[in-house]
C-alpha cells in the first residue's frame, strides 16, 4: 500500500472520537483491525468526496460511504477483525448487527434527532455550532428531516398510529435490545472472547453516543446505566483504543500512523467565513441605509436643483 486510504468522518465530541454512530463504527473497526487510515475529521459533509459521512476514499473502488461497505472493503484489504471467529460466531455477528439495526437504531435516531427537546437543545445546537457558517443554517434542519423520514420508513407503521404509542414501543424495543446485549455479553471482555471483532465495533458505536451525549431527555441512557457490564464495556473500549483522544480532541491515530491530518484545514475557512459574514452584513446595512436614507443625505447636499436627479441615480446604483 503506497498511501493510506482516506476516511472522512464527523469530528468527535463528548469524549468520543466521532459523534455519528456510523462514523464511529468505521473508526472503531479500523482501530480493531489495525487498518491504516488517514482520517479527516470534518464538520462539513460537503467536504466529503461523496457528500456524505462517513466516506472512504480508496485506490481501486472509488469512494465508499456505507459503514457495511467500508468494513467489507477493509476486510478485503486483509484488515479483518473477525479473522479468529468460527462460522457460528460469524452468524451471530450478523444476527446481532441486525438486532441493533432493527431495535436500537430507530430509538437512537429518535432520541437524537426527533425528540423535540433533545434535538433543539442538544443535537441541533451541536451541529449548528460545529458546521461552518452558511451551511449551519440549513444542514441541521435537513439532517433532522432526513432522519425523521428514515425513522418513519424504518418503522413503517407510524403513519397510521398515534405518535405516543409508536414512540413508547420504540423505546421498549431499544431497552429490550440493550438488555439482550447485556445478557449476551455477560462477564466477557468482548462479545467473542478477549479480542474485539466487528460486532464489538457496531455495538460500541451504537451504545457510546447514548452513554456520552448529554441529552436533556435521555431515556436510553437511564436504561443503559442500569446495565453495568455494557457501560464498563464501552468505557474499556474508549480507554484502550481511543486513549489519547481527550475531550473533542481533533487527533486520531487508528494505528501509530504518521500522516495525521487534524482539521487544521478548518481554520482558513473559518476566517474566510467570518470575513464573508461581516461583509454581507455590512453590505446589507449600507444598502438599507442608502435606500431608506437618501432624502436625508441629499438635503445636506449643496445643489437643490440636482437633488432629485442624484437621489434617483444613487438609488439605482444601489439596486444594481
Amino acid at each position: 500500500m503506497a498511501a493510506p486510504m482516506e476516511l472522512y468522518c464527523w469530528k468527535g465530541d463528548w469524549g468520543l472520537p466521532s459523534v455519528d454512530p456510523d462514523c464511529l463504527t468505521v473508526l472503531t473497526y479500523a482501530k480493531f483491525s489495525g487498518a491504516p487510515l488517514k482520517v479527516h475529521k470534518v464538520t462539513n459533509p460537503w467536504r466529503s468526496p461523496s457528500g456524505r459521512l462517513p466516506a472512504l476514499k480508496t485506490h481501486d473502488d472509488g469512494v465508499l460511504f456505507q459503514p457495511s461497505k467500508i468494513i467489507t472493503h477493509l476486510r478485503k484489504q486483509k484488515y479483518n477483525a473477525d479473522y479468529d471467529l468460527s462460522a457460528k460466531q460469524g452468524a451471530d455477528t450478523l444476527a446481532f448487527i441486525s438486532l441493533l439495526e432493527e431495535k436500537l437504531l430507530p430509538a437512537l435516531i429518535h432520541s437524537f434527532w426527533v425528540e423535540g427537546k433533545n434535538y433543539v437543545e442538544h443535537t441541533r445546537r451541536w451541529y449548528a455550532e460545529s458546521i461552518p457558517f452558511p451551511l449551519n443554517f440549513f444542514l441541521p434542519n435537513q439532517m433532522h428531516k432526513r432522519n425523521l423520514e428514515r425513522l418513519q420508513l424504518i418503522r413503517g407503521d407510524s403513519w397510521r398510529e398515534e405518535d405516543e404509542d409508536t414512540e413508547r414501543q420504540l423505546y421498549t424495543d431499544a431497552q429490550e435490545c440493550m438488555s439482550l446485549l447485556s445478557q449476551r455479553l455477560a462477564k466477557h471482555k468482548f462479545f467473542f472472547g478477549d479480542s474485539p471483532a466487528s460486532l464489538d465495533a457496531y455495538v460500541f458505536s451504537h451504545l457510546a453516543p447514548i452513554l456520552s451525549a448529554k441529552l436533556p431527555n435521555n431515556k436510553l441512557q437511564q436504561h443503559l446505566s442500569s446495565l453495568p457490564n455494557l457501560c464498563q464495556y464501552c468505557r474499556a473500549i474508549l480507554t484502550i483504543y481511543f486513549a489519547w483522544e481527550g475531550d473533542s480532541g481533533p487527533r486520531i491515530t487508528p494505528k501509530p500512523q504518521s500522516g495525521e491530518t487534524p482539521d487544521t484545514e478548518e481554520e482558513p475557512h473559518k476566517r474566510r467565513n467570518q470575513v464573508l459574514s461581516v461583509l454581507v452584513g455590512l453590505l446589507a446595512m449600507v444598502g438599507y441605509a442608502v435606500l431608506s436614507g437618501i432624502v436625508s443625505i441629499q438635503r445636506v447636499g449643496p445643489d437643490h436643483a440636482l437633488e432629485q436627479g442624484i437621489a434617483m441615480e444613487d438609488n439605482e446604483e444601489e439596486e444594481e
Partner: protein
Amino acid sequence: MGTVHARSLDPLPMNGPDFGSHDDADLVEVEPQKKQEILENKDVVVQRVHFEGLGRTKDDLIAHEIGQVFKAKNLIEVMRKSHEAREKLLRLGVFRNVEVLIDTCEGEDALPNGLDVTFEVTELRRLTGSYNTMVGNNEGSMVLGLKLPNLFGRAEKMTFQFSYGTKETSYGLSFFKPQVGNFERNFSVNLYKVTGQFPWSSLRETDRGVSAEINFPIWKTSHTLKWEGVWRELGCLARTASFAIREESGHTLKSSLSHTMVIDSRNTSILPKRGALLKINQELAGYTGGDVSFLKEDFELQLNKQLAWDSVLSTSLWGGMLVPIGDKPSSIADRFYLGGPTSVRGFSMYSIGPQSEGDYLGGEAYWAGGMHLYTPLPFRPGRGGFGDLFRTHFFLNAGNLCNLNYGEGPRAHLRRLAECIRWSYGAGIVLRLGNIARLELNYCIPMGVQSGDRICDGVQFGAGIRFL
C-alpha cells in the same frame, strides 16, 4: 349602501345586508327623475345600449343578458328591464359592480322619444386570491383559494382551493361554464381530494375524485346530471375502532351516475316563510366501472305555511333507500345516517340505528319527518334589524333508520320502517347565518330510544345547512 336602507320601504330586508342588490336598484331610478314629467306616459324606444368598462368580457354574452331592454315600450318598463338586466349581469359573477344610466338620446339620428341606456361596469380582476387559517379540534389548517372569474370572457370560472393542515391536506379544482344567454344551463368539472373524520363511526375517509355535472332547468324544476368517479380510502380513526369498522377499511373505487331534480318555490332557503321544496336524488353506481355497485334513491320534501302573528308552520319529510347490486354488501361510506341537532333532534350526531361496539354503521333505508312552528322571538327585541335573524321554534321530529332484507318484499319493509320509531320534541332558538346555514340551540326530549342509540337529552346545540 347605508343610504339605501333609509329609502327602502320594505320593513324586513329579508335578504340581509349582503344581498342588497335590489336596494341598489333604487339608486338607478334617481337619474331619470328629471325627465319623468315629460316621458312618463309616453311610448319610448331604447335606441342604444352602451357599455362602459368592458374588458375581456365577450359581447355575445352581454348581448344575451340585456336583449330585453330593447323591448321596453315606456319609461317604467325601461327602468324595470334595465334593472332586471343589471341583476342578470351581476349574477354572471363577472362584474364587481354594475351601474345603469338612462338618458335621452343625443346626436343626429336621435329620435324624440329615443333613450340611451348606459351600463357602467367594473370587471372582476383576472385572478383573485384568498388566504385564511382555521383552527379546529386539534387541528390547524391553512386554506389558500384562487379564483379566475371570466376565464375566457364568457363567464367561465375556475376555482382552486388548497388546504394544508397539520394532519391532512385537501384540495379542489373546479371549472364552471354556463351556456351563453342561459345562465341556469351550465356545466362544471371538479377535481378534488377531501378527508373526513367521522368520530361517530370511528372512521376516516379520504376521497380523491373527479366529477362532471350538467345543470339545466325544465319548466319549474331544475335538474342536475352528474358523473362522479371517486377513489375512497377508508380507515379506522383509532386503534379502538370496532371490528366491523376495521372490516370496511381499504380502498374502493366508486363510479356513479346521479340525477337530482329540485323544485323550490320557497322565498328563502334557511328560514322560509312560504313555499315548498321537493328534491329527488337518485344515484346508480357500478354501471360505469368501479368496484361498488348500488342504486340509491332519496327525497326531501318541505312545506311552509305562514300563520298569524308572523309565525310559520313548516313540515318536512325525508326518506331514502339503498339497494346494493350484486352480492357485495353496501359500503359504510354509502349508507344513510340519521340523528343530530338538525335532523332528528335529541339524538347525537348520526347516532341512530345499527351499531357495533359504539360505532354507528348506518342503514340502507331511512325516513324522517319533522313539524316546526317558527315564531318571532318573544316580545320581539331588535325587530326590523338584528332580531329578525332569530326565530323561536317548537318542533316534533321522528324518524327511523334500519337495514332491509331485500328478499322480504315491500310490506315487510314498511313494517320494519314503522317499528322502533325514534321521535323527539322540544323548543329552541334558531339563528340564520347569511343565506347558507343556521345555528340551533334547542331543548330536546328524545322518545322511542332504542338500545344502542346515543341520545342528547336536554340542551343540544348544532349548525347545519340541511335541516329537518
